[in-house]
C-alpha cells in the first residue's frame, strides 16, 4: 500500500487551526499594544524571560509557533491550488519546509533561554 502523508499534515492542520483560533487573536492584540509602544507588563524582559525559562512556558511557545506554521502551510497550499496555481509539489515542499525549519529553530532558541 502506498504510504501517504495526508493523516500527518491534516492532523497538524486541524490541531493548528484549532489552537490558533483560540490563542492567535489575543496574542495579536497584545503585540498590537507593543506596536503602539505600550507593551503590557508580561512583555517586559524579566517577565517574558521568566515565562520562557519555565519548561511549561517553553512548551506553550513551541507549540504555538510550530502549529501556526504547519497550519498556515497546509491551508495556503489548498488556497493557492484554489487560486489556480498548479505547482503543488513546489508549494508543498516550500511550505512544509519552512514549517519544519521554523519548528527546529523554535526548539533551538527556546532551549537556550
Amino acid at each position: 500500500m502506498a504510504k501517504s502523508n495526508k493523516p500527518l499534515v491534516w492532523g497538524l492542520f486541524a490541531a493548528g487551526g484549532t489552537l490558533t483560533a483560540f490563542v492567535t487573536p489575543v496574542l495579536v492584540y497584545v503585540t498590537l499594544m507593543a506596536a503602539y509602544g505600550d507593551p503590557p507588563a508580561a512583555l517586559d524582559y524579566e517577565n517574558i524571560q521568566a515565562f520562557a525559562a519555565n519548561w511549561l512556558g517553553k512548551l506553550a511557545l513551541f507549540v504555538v509557533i510550530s502549529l501556526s506554521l504547519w497550519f498556515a502551510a497546509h491551508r495556503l497550499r489548498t488556497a493557492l491550488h484554489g487560486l489556480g496555481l498548479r505547482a503543488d509539489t513546489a508549494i508543498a515542499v516550500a511550505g512544509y519546509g519552512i514549517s519544519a525549519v521554523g519548528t527546529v529553530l523554535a526548539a533551538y532558541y527556546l532551549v537556550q533561554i
Partner: protein
Amino acid sequence: MSRRPYVRRISTTTWYLKKKRDLVHMIQELTSLFVGIYGILLLWGVKALSEGPEAYGAFLEALTGPLSLAFHWVAFPLVLYHAISWFNVTHKAMPIQRGEEFLPGKYIVGAHYVVWIGFSLVVLFVAGVF
C-alpha cells in the same frame, strides 16, 4: 460519446468570485497567511529573547515600526475572522451524538466561544492589560 460533449468552462483562477459562499471560503483560507506570518513574528521574538535583554529590547523597538503597525492592523481582524469561522463549523467537524439524536450545533459552537472568550480574558489579565 456524443459528438459535442458538454464542457463546462470553469475558470481555475477566478471561480470563487461567482458565488458568495466560495468567496467567503477563499477569504477564510487566505487568513491563514497572517496566522503563519504571526508565527514567524513569534519565532523572531523568541530568537531575540534567547539572545538577551538588548536583543529583546531591539525586538520590542522594531515592533513599533510602521510595517509592524500596518501588519498588526490588517492581521487582527483577519485572525479574529479565522477564529470565528473556525469555531462556527466545529459542530460539523466533530458532531456529538447522544443516543439517537445529535447534540444541536449551537451548543458545540457556543462552548467553543465561551472557552475562547474566557481564555482570552485570562491571557489579557495575566499579561497585565487590565
